[in-house]
């Protein structure tokens, strides 16, 4: 709803409040990310906005990035992970306030987009609106980054995915957010296998987190319909900023 997934809250909550090691926290968070993404997919699909071809093509970048990210997790210090996490939180908060505009009139599409048929149409109040992807290499590169962050931090990194599609590739915002949600599960699955074999996914911890997040996302969607989105987004962003700063401070002080 606010464009921010649950992952960005779970890891800081587990590490800062419950003093869980960040690697267990990442494992539990990643699992819940798959659950919410896949659980919500059915609802999004019915809206008819998500683009399965663009999603599939970009998943090449995100899954490769996710494996790279999961590989990094084992090699960098928990402090470094904490700092990167804090920075991503701050960025996510800022991104949730950005104006949701779509570039208009730029119908210039590259050869690559034509070749890969990265185009589509979506239902509009006045019939159907067509769109074509632009700057495919830039979008692909950003998607690799999104995948790396997802694999490194156990989050969905929806904010970066939306950035890649909405800003870099000039896709309509609705198409970007729904396709992003569609991609998150596949991206997370790519690093989940590696996490599991490394023993990051603890049943005692992942069980309550996954069930809680799933129950929350099912009921939350209903409550959110009646809530004031602007206030909600503001409150949420402030929480994220606070968590981000605390993650960075704690990491620098070596308490994580």
């Amino acid at each position, binding site marked *: 709803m606010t464009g921010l997934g649950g992952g960005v809250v779970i890891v800081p909550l587990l590490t800062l409040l*419950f*003093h*869980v*090691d960040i*690697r*267990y926290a990442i494992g539990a968070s990643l*699992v819940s990310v*798959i*659950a919410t*993404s*896949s*659980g919500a*997919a*059915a*609802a*999004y*699909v*019915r809206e*008819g906005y*998500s683009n*399965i*071809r663009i999603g*599939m*093509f970009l*998943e*090449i970048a995100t*899954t*490769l990035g*996710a*494996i790279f990210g*999961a590989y990094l997790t084992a090699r960098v210090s928990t402090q470094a992970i904490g700092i990167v996490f804090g920075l991503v939180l701050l960025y996510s908060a800022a991104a949730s306030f950005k104006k949701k505009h779509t570039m208009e009139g730029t119908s210039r599409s590259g050869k690559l987009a034509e070749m*890969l*048929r990265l185009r589509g149409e979506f239902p509009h109040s006045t019939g159907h609106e067509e769109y074509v992807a632009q700057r495919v290499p830039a979008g692909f590169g950003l998607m690799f980054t999104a995948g790396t962050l997802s694999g490194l931090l156990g989050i969905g990194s929806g904010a970066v995915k939306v950035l890649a599609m909405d800003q870099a590739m000039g896709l309509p915002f609705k198409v970007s957010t729904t396709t992003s949600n569609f991609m998150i*599960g*596949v991206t*997370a*699955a*790519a*690093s*989940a*296998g*590696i996490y*599991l*074999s*490394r*023993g*990051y*996914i*603890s*049943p*005692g*911890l*992942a*069980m*309550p987190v*996954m*069930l809680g997040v*799933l129950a929350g996302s099912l009921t939350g969607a209903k409550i959110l319909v009646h809530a004031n989105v602007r206030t909600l987004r503001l409150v949420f962003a402030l929480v994220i900023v606070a968590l981000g700063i605390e993650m960075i401070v704690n990491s620098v002080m070596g308490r994580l």
Partner: protein
Amino acid sequence: MQLTDERLEIAIGRMLQTGVLLAAAVVLIGGVMYLLRAPAGPRLDYSHFHGVAESLRTPGGIWHGLLHGDAESVIQLGLLLLIATPVFRVIVALVGFAVERDQLYVWVSAIVLAVLLYSLWHIG
């Protein structure tokens, strides 16, 4: 073609939801078993990382635990189902593209599937 695409997407969406609900049910069953049989000692320490037991890291180990009615193995089975759900979604999409005779996207899906399987190999 648009019509097939739409049907394909709806089928995928429904499949994802079923997978998640199935996984959640298994995790819930495992969770109840886990809480009922929880040892009455001090609570588990998650603040220091030592990795979960070897037997909970591989499908073989989890299967072995299942046969012994181990609650943690039941939870891990649910989590494995959850991880497998997006992988199945890529397979369904691949088959869908094949039915549509969209060779380019059969290949694109195959690459994504290969990357996912590479990752899952780590489990085995």
